[in-house]
């Protein structure tokens, strides 16, 4: 049935696209606060996922009745501490350096975090279960309940971030820090705390993304390589200044990948999809939902 094949590819694309979106939201959050593109977001997510996996295995072996929930909570706690330490040790001391310098620091973090993960957890690839296991069949179509969970999670995180930035005092503090941290500080905004909290949140989001991504890639030191790259593309396509943008961008990439792969060519899939995305960016250089920076005269 042709429509079933079409829908199957769309559903598959939505699930994968949601993973890109989840991975992108943490990058966008840090960018919005500090203008820094955190290239190490993927590797930090990978490290957190290894911790999550370890908790999952140990709690299952210890006979804990809900090992996945234990792993999920453990991931959130660990990533909060991890994000705090990264910000405190590597990011804050470079707060006066140039934007480029800060980004180089995040590039250095890629190597550090990846090397540490290999040394601590080893280099084997491990299976991680889905949040909701099993699948449902509709005729020839397969729908995984896990997909809906991932999509829902991406939308909830997006809405929470959107609400927080737009309608809370903390959001005002974030926007003030993002606009001019020195003036914000003079106005009484605790800019250091804002930045630290942002890194903590972004790292926690990375851990959640990693946990959702792991069933699709396995847990290993290279698990985020492709996803992280595509999450960046999703963020650029959707607009780096928007929280809705990366979600739409991620979904577009996921769905287009599958449709081009099925209906046109798997050989030319990457070329066609990313060629198309470049054309979009020519007409919308700040992304589909990105704000065009306005300069006061």
């Amino acid at each position, binding site marked *: 049935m042709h429509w079933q094949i079409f829908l199957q590819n769309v559903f598959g694309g939505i699930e994968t696209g949601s993973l890109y979106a989840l991975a992108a939201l943490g990058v966008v959050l840090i960018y919005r606060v500090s203008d820094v593109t955190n290239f190490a977001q993927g590797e930090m997510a990978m490290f957190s996922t290894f911790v999550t996996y370890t908790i999952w295995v140990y709690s299952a072996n210890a006979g804990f009745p809900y090992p996945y929930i234990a792993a999920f909570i453990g991931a959130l706690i660990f990533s909060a501490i991890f994000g705090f330490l990264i910000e405190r040790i590597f990011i804050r001391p470079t707060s006066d350096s140039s934007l480029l310098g800060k980004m180089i620091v995040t590039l250095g973090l890629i190597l550090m975090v990846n*090397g540490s993960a290999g040394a601590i957890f080893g*280099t084997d690839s491990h299976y991680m279960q889905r949040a909701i296991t099993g699948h449902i069949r509709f005729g020839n179509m397969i729908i995984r309940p896990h997909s809906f969970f991932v999509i829902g999670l991406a939308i909830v995180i997006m809405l929470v971030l959107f609400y927080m930035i737009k309608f809370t005092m903390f959001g005002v503090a974030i926007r003030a820090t993002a606009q001019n941290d020195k003036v914000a500080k003079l106005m009484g905004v605790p800019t250091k705390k804002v930045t630290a909290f942002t890194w903590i949140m972004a790292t926690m989001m990375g851990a959640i993304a990693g946990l959702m991504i792991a069933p699709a*890639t*396995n847990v290993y030191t*290279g698990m985020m390589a492709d996803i992280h790259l595509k999450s960046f593309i999703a963020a650029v396509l959707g607009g780096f200044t928007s929280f809705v943008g990366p979600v739409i961008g991620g979904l577009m990439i996921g769905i287009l990948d599958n449709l081009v792969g099925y209906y046109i060519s798997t050989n030319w899939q990457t070329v066609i999809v990313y060629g198309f995305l470049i054309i979009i960016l020519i007409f919308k250089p700040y992304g589909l939902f990105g704000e065009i920076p306005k300069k006061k005269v």
Partner: protein
Amino acid sequence: MLKKLSKVGVMALVAALLLPGLVMASSQGVDDNTITIGSVGVTSGPAAFIGQPYYEGMRAYFQTVNDEGGVLGREIELIHRDDEFDPAQARDHVEELIYDEEVFAIVGQLGTPGVISSAQLVSDSGIPSVYFGSGATELTELGENFFPVQPNYVYEGKLMAKYAVEHFEAENIAVLYQNDDVGRDGIQGIREGLAELDMEDHLNEDAVISHNPNQSDFTAPMQRILVQDPDMVIVFSLSQAASLIVRAAEDFGLEVPMLTTYSNADASFLATIEPSETAPNAIHNLHVMGWLDVDDESLAPLITSMEEYYPDSTINAYTMAGWVAGETFVAGLRNLEGDITWENYIAGMNTLEFTDGLAAEISFEPGVRQGVTFMAVSKVVEEDGEYFFEQLTDFMEF
């Protein structure tokens, strides 16, 4: 007189400059007690899971040989350099090993990109390079000082085609391959194999489907396969993608035999699938090519050696590959006649027929560098919840 003297002087100078080079080139890395060899391969970063067990296997073999008195009255000393799977680093390290460390041979260089990037250097120097952790087909054509052992992927593809039509009796084959050098060599071999068997019509071009090496969503490729309604699927993809393909086969209800490359012929590959959770049915359709003739007896020396030198390490296919690299180099030394020189070593390797190791047979002839050509098919079996490969067919050549 002065003219004659100056001519003699020039000749003497040329000889003085060239002779040490010639002497060094033919016996470097060898002294009365030691034969020093070099190897370059990844042992850190994302691909370290290959290199770490691989070099443990190789070192375990050399340590065993040394403990037993060495070979040709000398101990073997291995100098290893980590290239982090970076071809530029691989080339630099190979150059360093040949010209600074002055090793006698390069043994078991690991990783196709690095091997290819340093091939010209090795070729120009004339140093013997024995065993490559790579199935790249170019290795068969690089020259007389290259001794590839692992089957190349084109040849493996040909043999897969033969097994598909003769053993599995497939008439409508689908191929899912990863879109890089490995997969492209594989599909080329499958096409060539079917052509030589005069069975090209068993492979419809619409059933030849590629995927990206890092792909995580196999919805589209699996849909395309199902539309073809094949009676067999050849999966020419390395472990990361292949494990996801087996899971996708389970999800989408693909219920035909799958045959994958020898690169996945290891229990650690099955562990990454976690068959009982993700592919309880599809896993029983999975078959794998294999070139190592492994049974309890042939594995015993490796297991004993690893227990002694690396008691905390797991033995997997990469460990075995490293061990075979060591076996091949030493077999060549034992086949050498006369002084330990590059020329004599290459001559010895050219008459080698080594059947006492983990591979069914390793042999070379002048101008023939095909590597191992005997391969067998294994299938996945389950026993008490454990999954492993069990040999299904005899070893066969194309």
